């Protein structure tokens, strides 16, 4: 049986992230961080879901996330990533990028470094207004940030100044960023383009541009397949999930009609990449499962009580091992489950690690599911 714990936290959650596990760890993650938005004072909070010490009297509140510590954050939390076990990089709507350190011995948070005005609008009329930093990605020690000003910054955690800055990298707003390889990043923007940037090149031009055809639907999120780096998933304003094969073509391999409104985040399961998770403004959170073997569950016999549907890919060019790119029509099925039955307000964020899923909503609640594959 599923175990979902909810907690109302009196702040709209914009980001939730699990703390990464040490390499050899076997136990599920027990700590996550959240950031809020649209509040008078926004906060970064660390929550614990572990059994040890967190259970209330008589263990009755076992499983409900417990607040460990929090700290004020200037501006909306736009994006947040763990740099390592202790440090969190947060992008703010004021344009600054801050590294917070979580001191685990006394459970406190402190700002250890801040790049003020990492993103800004250069303008002669108004005094250098900050532009929201919309995306952050870390690959210790490197940190890449993108913003509404179309700028890409490359920082190193221990250095004061930016290692590399690409001004006007994009004419429109950059919405998200992720690492493709150690020197290459992927960005998505508000005119439906997916761009690859290579930091080895000195030119301030993208190495490659992919785009959706025609209608320029903005893309809001991007994630890369953890094992097969050429497979990339993006989510758009119309709720469409696009799967791209960046080795070839400039168009997505498949377009899957999904949510009814903006898809805010898409994540491949880090260790089980046949599973994908997406969440959306329409208040839904979908679990896409391509591991389902058709022979096990013939679709005409399957009468799920849950909202389960089988989708078929439409355009596929080649056969690859990955289910995400496969073109065999008989095998080409995926099971999709909506994990939130009574949706109302937007699910802004989700993160998945091991068997655990955390998501946060505009209804000021955080939810933790610790038995994802049970």
């Amino acid at each position: 049986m599923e175990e979902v714990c909810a907690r109302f936290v009196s702040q709209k959650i914009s980001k939730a992230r699990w703390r990464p596990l040490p390499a050899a760890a076997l136990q599920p993650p027990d700590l996550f961080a959240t950031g809020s938005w649209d509040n008078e004072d926004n906060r970064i909070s660390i929550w614990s879901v572990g059994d040890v010490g967190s259970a209330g009297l008589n263990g009755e509140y076992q499983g409900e996330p417990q607040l460990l510590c929090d700290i004020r954050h200037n501006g909306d939390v736009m994006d947040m990533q763990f740099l390592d076990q202790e440090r969190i990089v947060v992008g703010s709507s004021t344009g600054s990028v801050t590294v917070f350190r979580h001191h685990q011995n006394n459970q406190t948070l402190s700002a250890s470094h801040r790049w003020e005005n990492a993103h800004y609008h250069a303008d002669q009329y108004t005094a250098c207004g900050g532009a929201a930093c919309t995306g952050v990605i870390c690959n210790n020690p490197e940190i890449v940030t993108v913003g509404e000003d179309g700028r890409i910054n490359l920082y190193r955690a221990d250095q004061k100044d930016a290692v590399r800055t690409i001004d006007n990298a994009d004419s429109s707003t950059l919405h998200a960023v992720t690492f493709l390889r150690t020197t290459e990043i992927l960005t998505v923007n508000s005119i439906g383009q997916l761009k690859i940037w290579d930091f080895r090149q000195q030119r301030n031009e993208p190495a490659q541009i992919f785009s959706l055809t025609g209608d320029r639907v903005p893309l809001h999120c991007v994630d890369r397949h953890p094992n097969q780096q050429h497979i990339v998933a993006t989510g758009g304003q119309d709720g469409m999930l696009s799967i791209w094969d960046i080795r070839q073509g400039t168009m997505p391999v498949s377009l899957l009609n999904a949510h009814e409104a903006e898809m805010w985040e898409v994540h491949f399961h880090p260790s089980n990449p046949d599973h994908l998770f997406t969440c959306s403004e329409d208040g839904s959170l979908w679990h896409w499962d391509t591991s389902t073997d058709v022979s096990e569950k013939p679709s005409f016999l399957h009468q799920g009580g849950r909202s389960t549907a089988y989708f078929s890919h439409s355009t596929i060019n080649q056969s690859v091992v990955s289910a995400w790119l496969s073109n065999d029509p008989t095998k080409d099925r995926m099971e999709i489950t909506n994990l939130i039955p009574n949706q109302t307000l937007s699910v802004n964020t989700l993160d998945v690690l091991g068997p655990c899923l955390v998501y946060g909503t505009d209804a000021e609640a955080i939810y933790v599911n610790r038995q994802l594959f049970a």
Partner: protein
Amino acid sequence: MCSGGSTTCERLKCVKRPMVREQARRGRRTRLCSYCFPTTLPRPSSGIRAAWPGPASPLPPRRGLQCRHCFRGERPRLPQSRGASPSGRRGGGRRRLAAGLPAAGRGETLRSSAGGSRQESGQPRGASARAGERRGHGGARHGAAADGGAGRRPGPDAAVLRVGPRRDAAVRDALRPERDQDIYMETLRKLFNESHGIFVGLQRCEEERAARARNAQLVQVSKNYRSVIRACMEDMHQAAISARDSALHSQYSIQVSILSAMELIWNLCEILFVEAAPAGPLLLRLLDWVQLHICDVDNMVREVLGSENPSKHKLFWNVVDIFVLQGRMDEARHLLSKEAIANPTSMNMYKILDDLMKKMPVPSLGNTQTLTEMELKWQHWHEECQRYLQDGTFASNSHMESICKILLGDENAILEKKELMTTWYHFLVTRLLYSHPTVKPMELRFYAQSSMDMFLGEESNPEPLDTILMAAFEFELHQVIKECSVALSNWWFVAHLTDLLDHCKLLQSHNLYFGSNMREFLLLEYASGLFSHHSLWQLGVDYFDHCPEYGRVYLELHIERIPLNTEQKALKVLRICEQRQMHEQVRSICKIMAMKALRNNRLGSALSWSIRAKDAAFATLISDRFLKDYCERGYFSDLDLIDNLGPSMLLSDRLTFLGKYREFHRLYGEKRFSEAARLLLMLMTAHIAPCSFWMTLLTDALPLLEQKEVIFSAEQTYELMRCLEDLTARKLDKQKFQDDDVETMKVEMLRLALARNLARVIVKEGTLEGS
């Protein structure tokens, strides 16, 4: 009793929460979550009370889940409007208001009278002025909405508004002065958010259900609301405990008592209106209600049972009395049996009393017995009690005699236990239990009024809470809502309660003379309050959606006033507008964002926004900026955007030109000269290019004309020449005597190039044809 299990709550499937408690009842264990637990309905006959330790489960209270009476002695109580004001006047003011709400239209007189009542109530001037400011603030916000909102909201709501913020001076001082303070309390935000989900669920659930199922569903919804209040109360209580600051502590404590009063009222409304329990079950429900909300006894019980010799404890008989007064016979008998063991001499007496208590007939919840049957049994039992009392069986023990009198429904005997009952509504329920167990809903009002009079006597005057409960007992629904609006400091309670009652089809007969109806009016007020909050505005949207008449107008006016700090927030607001086909607002939001981007020199972004808004004029403006920048710098910025315009290029002529012109550059760069030449010519002959740009275009043609290979055909060259002549002719008209050297030189060069090209092409075409 408690389990750390992993199942979900069996009672409410509303929110998936971890199962936290189990409740044993009639041999069956029900697993309930922390929220649902306190709202369990039928009193467990086994006497096991899991949440509140009873005699059979003397567990320590968990995580502050005590009865609210144990919340540091906070009673359910509403803030007294004004401690100093004489009661008579206060009552008078209320009556006036009560008369005012349905009889609207006389807005002006009402307003003045409401103002007058405040003046005469002798309230400190400072407070009055402050309250006035706050209202002024709110009024300014709402005034904008009212403009478009069909210019309504005359008197009555003004009166409610005026009296709305009446609250305890301590509360008022502890909080921010000029805001709708409750919205700013962290803990209450949980209440708003969680109840929002229930509200939306209630609106969604279909109407066509069978009446019975529908009723059960509504009761369920009502319980959900109550469990949210409970949960909020717990949180608030925790906050009060952990508050270091004493002012903060008292503020939280006040909130706890207000919340508990809310729950008390809600619960009564649930019994009387939502569930509409018939005679018989009605009494059982009322007993539950009293037991749930008045539980001083549990502390006492714990104390008594914890002592070494319970029957010798000084509070022993008090506890027994309370059990009897609350109709908890099994628990009372349990205690009495201990006493009986200690006094073997009077064993017989105990046995008789025990027997009487055991035999007492209770109305059944099911349809197993009819009312007459019940009444007959009752009569019989009553006579038996009477007999024992008269023959002096209990004469030797005053405690037992008084219990027997209580069983007989002797009002004086019950009133003697006033201290134990603490409230008049407890007295009412006890009185009903022992003298009118089959009371009909409509008879309640008589007993309620007389109970209150008897209990309170002459000297004290009713508090707001008493008036509200009394109105409920009198089935004066509108009066309840009105009194609550007056007494409570926010609209949450009345808005949700009214909405629920409206779904029970209880409010339809009543129409206001303004706006649409009471439900909508209150929802609009509540949602407007949410919109004034920097973060809760998203909740307000759904409330407006379910106001059929004015909701949309309100939403339109409110949504335009939300500050758009980031694009993400703008996108969220935009989505709300797009889902509701609010085209005007969509356009204005896009325009704001485009303007912002333009100010920040983000031409690409600005263009994207204006394309999204389909704003042709703005797109033209931005395209001009692009072209101007090109003319100045000689290269295009934001190529990634312009190259990918696609069909959106057709939005405005200038944008089309921009896209096509850029295409010319690309063709030229790719050395596809003839295509480039054709496109360039087309831009001028089809009048896509603005005239001011023709010179630039012709200059762009120069290198093509000078290519080694002939590109322009003779016909095209003639066209080009015509364009050039058109241009110079127009120039001449405008600025005859202004001679620009550069310009003339350009024209000269062009003419020369055109002539040479023409010569070459004639030769070429001639030879081709000839050969």
